[in-house]
């Protein structure tokens, strides 16, 4: 059972580092035991996971925006139904993840407020625009493909609620990638213009997708402790390499060109990419990507416009409760 209510009594471990408990904790991690919400954990473990899981949740929610942009303009009813189902899944994933994050003792409302105020981050990829229908195919194929690479190892993460949420997410994510690739196949077998549209989308998304795996291993700030705590099982560069090696043959199948003329296969068969423009990544994270302001504004608007619904639902629940109490008293 993982609930906020059960966690509220257990605030005494925050900020207090107990050497003996910390070594017991590490021994449990080393023995591949799962850590559960009411177990003792170091304050830094709690903080790291709260940050990571809530950022992950925010990414799912903000990720609905670029794709939602095309629901009303999908080229057929079949594509529209699939895209709608996919965007609903993203919302569901956000909610599983908020529930997992809450078990660490921060309420969903606080987490959402941190995102709306701009204090909490979400994946940089969702700050890029979806200009054509081919972008929807490319997002499913590459963005969801990259997300799956990241998420499969998280199903074995040391924190129980996060691992369980990721198992559900990964099961559903596979449909997302396949529907995206199907869109790409259709476009690439279509007219010259359709194929050019697919190539153009790949050209724009390729580098931002490689950035999704995070900074290179030499400069990543969170990797060491996350690896020690078995939150992270593969490094950023390892996952990025796996993704590229899996994607190159798929692009070949589509007859598309990966926009990296310097990319070469090494003696181990791995595709070695050219240097990534990390300045662009930093700029997008700092809020200067093409759509940062638009995305946050859309989330704030939805949240504010939904406020009366939340208030009305709570007022109605209160009214019914007091009526029931009054009836019981009669």
């Amino acid at each position, binding site marked *: 059972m993982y609930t906020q209510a059960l966690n509220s009594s257990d605030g005494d471990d925050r900020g207090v580092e107990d050497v003996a408990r910390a070594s017991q904790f590490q021994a449990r991690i080393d023995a591949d035991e799962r850590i559960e919400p*009411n177990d003792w954990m170091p304050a830094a473990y709690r903080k790291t996971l709260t940050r990571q899981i809530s950022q992950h949740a925010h990414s799912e929610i903000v990720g609905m925006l670029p794709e939602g942009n095309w629901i009303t303009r999908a080229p057929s009813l079949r594509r529209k139904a699939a895209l709608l189902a996919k965007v609903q899944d993203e919302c569901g994933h956000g909610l*599983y993840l908020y*529930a997992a994050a809450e078990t660490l003792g921060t*309420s969903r409302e606080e987490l959402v407020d941190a995102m709306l105020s701009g204090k909490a981050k979400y994946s940089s990829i969702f700050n890029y625009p979806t200009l054509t229908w081919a972008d929807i195919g490319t997002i499913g194929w590459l963005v969801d493909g990259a997300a799956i690479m990241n998420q499969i190892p998280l199903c074995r993460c040391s924190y129980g609620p996060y691992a369980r949420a990721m198992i559900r997410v990964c099961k559903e994510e596979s449909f997302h990638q396949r529907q995206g690739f199907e869109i790409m196949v259709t476009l690439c077998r279509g007219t010259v213009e359709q194929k050019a549209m697919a190539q153009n989308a790949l050209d724009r998304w390729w580098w931002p997708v490689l950035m999704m795996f995070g900074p290179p291993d030499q400069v990543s700030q969170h990797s060491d402790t996350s690896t020690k705590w078995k939150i992270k099982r593969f490094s950023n560069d390892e996952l990025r390499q796996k993704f590229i090696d899996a994607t190159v043959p798929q692009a070949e199948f589509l007859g598309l060109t990966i926009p990296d003329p310097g990319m070469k296969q090494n003696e181990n068969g791995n595709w070695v990419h050219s240097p990534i423009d990390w300045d662009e990544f930093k700029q997008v994270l700092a809020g200067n990507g093409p759509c940062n302001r638009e995305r946050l504004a859309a989330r704030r608007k939805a*949240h504010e416009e939904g406020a009366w619904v939340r208030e009305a*639902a709570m007022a109605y629940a209160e009214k019914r409760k007091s009526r029931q109490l009054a009836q019981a008293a009669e």
Partner: protein
Amino acid sequence: MATPNVPLWEVFIRSRNGLAHKHVGSLHAADSTLALQAARDIYTRRGEGLSIWVVPSNAITASDPSEKGMMFEPAESKIYRHPTFYDVPDEVGHM
């Protein structure tokens, strides 16, 4: 302005294979009717269940994990509660 808290519910689903209701996660909702609808949307988008229970999280009493040693000790020492404790001659076959 900080968003006010909405009550938390635990969700249990009975799948179509006839097993008992199983905990699948939690959600926020103002009341039980909304909680059931939200549970359907969040946890059964692919026909995962035939029945849903929602329970206010604060109505659940849980055992304390730090006392699990003492809590479950009575069962630890009673190996005679397991069928393998008893010897049955091989000639008798499966029992």
